Structures are given as structure tokens and as C-alpha cells.
């Protein structure tokens, strides 16, 4: 009887651990984006509709911006810091993201593509 109770408790602990693991896996996907004059890396990002993601934004040189106008989200990208920006795309399609802080002669071409399927 006592042995059966221990087995039952052990099974419960395993189930709890599995549940915690599942919770960890269901958190938003993190996508690292590095900015430097005048490119984003990566400059093409694939997302799933309704999938929450977090962009972790850093810059290798100057102050930048990361703007996704079609989803009305943006963030500054400050040298020496990691900026986190959440997005859950609610529509499919191909969308532009861009630097919206003027950073020099190549600023106008500093953009990338979000592909949401």
C-alpha cells in the first residue's frame, strides 16, 4: 500500500514537470534582430498568424528604430541595450519593417520583410 502511494506521488511529480515544460515551450518565440548601418540581420522574418513573438533588438553602432507600421508597433534600438518588442500578427501577408530613426546615407534602404503565413 505504502509503495503504491509513493508510485502515485512520483507519477504526479513527473506530470507536473511535464506540464511546466509544456508551459515553457508555449511562451512567445524570441527572434533576435541586429541592426547596424544600414541593414537588419535577419532582413526577412517568417511568422505564423496569431503566433506571439518577441523581437530582441540590438544595434552594433548607432541609435536606430525598428518599426512595423502595418501592426502599429515600434521600438527604439539603443546602443548597449537589448530592447524587447512583442508582436502577435493578426493578419497574413508580406509586410515591411524599417528603421525609422534617420541614421545616415543608407537609411532609406534600411528595411526588411515580415512574412506572416
Amino acid at each position: 500500500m505504502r509503495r503504491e502511494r509513493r508510485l502515485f506521488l512520483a507519477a504526479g511529480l513527473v506530470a507536473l514537470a511535464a506540464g511546466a515544460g509544456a508551459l515553457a515551450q508555449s511562451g512567445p518565440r524570441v527572434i533576435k534582430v541586429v541592426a547596424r548601418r544600414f541593414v537588419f540581420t535577419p532582413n526577412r522574418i517568417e511568422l505564423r498568424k496569431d503566433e506571439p513573438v518577441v523581437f530582441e533588438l540590438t544595434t552594433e553602432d548607432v541609435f536606430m528604430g525598428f518599426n512595423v507600421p502595418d501592426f502599429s508597433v515600434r521600438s527604439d534600438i539603443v546602443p548597449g541595450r537589448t530592447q524587447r518588442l512583442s508582436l502577435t500578427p493578426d493578419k497574413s501577408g508580406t509586410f515591411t519593417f524599417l528603421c525609422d530613426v534617420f541614421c545616415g546615407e543608407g537609411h532609406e534602404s534600411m528595411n526588411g520583410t515580415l512574412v506572416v503565413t
Partner: protein
Amino acid sequence: MKIDRRRFLQLGALGGGAVLASGLAGCASLADSDDDDFYFVQLSDSHWGFQGPKVNPDARGTLPKAVAAVNALPVRPDFIVFTGDLTHTTDNPVERRRRLAEFRDIVAGLDVKTVHFMAGEHDAALDHGKAWMEFFGPTHYTFDHKGVHFIALDNVSDPAARLGDEQLAWLAADLAAQPQEARIVVFAHRPLFDLAPQWDWATRDGAKAMELLLPCTNVTVFYGHIHQENHHMTGHIAHHSARSLIFPLPAPLSQPKREPIPWDADHPYRGLGFREIEAEDGGAKLALSEMPIGRA
């Protein structure tokens, strides 16, 4: 002949929309116009210092041609306004000042007494307007001419394309001193509305400026930045963008990338030009004419 040479845009006609009409082309005179009538010229986006033979093999010749074209107008404008991006951006502060000085020296050849200058992000964003102000003074200001109140806004010397709370407070105070029905013309470099944020054709806090301007009953905005003619209404307020003096850009979001339109050797200077704005009836009506550079 009263000026009917221009195709003109009568603002606020037919339910607040902008109606483009065509007038006769040719010479004209202001001799029989009303005393309060006047006209001014808008030039924009000369990007002095730009190099890119595929989009303009005459980069150093286009601005002087524009100066010559303005000087050849049959009637001298009352004044000229440059709505920004006088020079092309550079990281080098010495080179920036050299370009600003060359630009200043070239436009000194304009045979017009009064010229108002504004900054673009290419002139001013990388040093918050420091060099530009050494040459041309404050980046936002007002002036009055023949009953029209002109307001020049700076939405470029902050690289994040903001007017900022301080300038917005200044604008609010200036507007508060005007009658609600005052004739007001606003100049800016970037559009004050979200024309195409995907191409950075916007002002981050432009909506706040529009909130301040909307209670005024007679406001028109002229701007540059997008290197093409564009007309838009925010309520009763018309926005008109100007052509460039260096290269044209495609229509907003008409293609995936905001790339300059290549030079057309069969039609050199196509898409480039400047604008005449004629103020009639004490500024109650503004008529626009788009003028080419060289052989367009």
C-alpha cells in the same frame, strides 16, 4: 492677362476636395491682378552633394538650372521657400558644411530678395540641425506676408522625425494668437500625416500638429521629402508635396522598395521641378502650378 497660365488647384472647392483644373500655358502678368494677390515659389529636395549618375547624371547642374528657371519667370515671385533637404547627408561635419556653403552660394544667384530656408533630415538629422543653423538660422519660425501667416515647422532635426513637445507648444501659442479664420500656410519637410510610414513618409507626432491646426478654418500645408507631387486632405486642410531637384521617387507604396526612379535619357529631368503658388483674394484661394526643370 490675369494669371490663368497655370493648371491650378482650387482648395476647398466642391465639398472640401481638391480639384485639379487646367489653365492655359504661356506667359502671364500680374499687372492687372489685385494688390493683395501675390505668388511665391516652392523649391525642395536639391540634395546638393548627391552622386548617382543612374538617377541624375547632372547632379551638379540641376540646382543651377532651377535657379536659372526661377530667374527666367516673367514675374518675380514675392519670395521663395526651400522645403528642406538642401544638401545630401554626410557623416563628415566638414563636408556637411562645405555642401551647405556651396548650396548657399548657388542659390545666392536667385534674383529674388526674400528666400526662406528649411531643413530636411539629410541636412539636419545627424547633428540635430547644428550645421544647418550656422548657415540659415532657426529651423522653425513664422512670418507674415500680405495678410497670410506662414509657419515653418521642423520635423527633421530630431532624427526620430518628431516635432517634439516644445515645438508643438510653440505652435499652439502661435495659433492662439491668430484669428480662427486667419489665412495660414504651413511649411514642413516631411508630411504631417501618415502618407506611407512603411517608407518613412510620416511625422511621428504629426497628428498632434494637425490637431492644433484643424480648428483653424483656412490652412494649407506644403512639404517636400517624397520627391513628387502629391495631394491629400486632412479634413479641410490640404497637403501638397513638391517635386525634387535631384531625382523623383515612385508613388507611395507603388512598388516594394522606395528606390529612386532611374534617369530617362529621352526625357532628362522628367519628374523634377518646382512649384508656383499664387495667393488670390488675400490668401483665401491658392493656385498651384508645377514647373519643369530643363527639358522635362
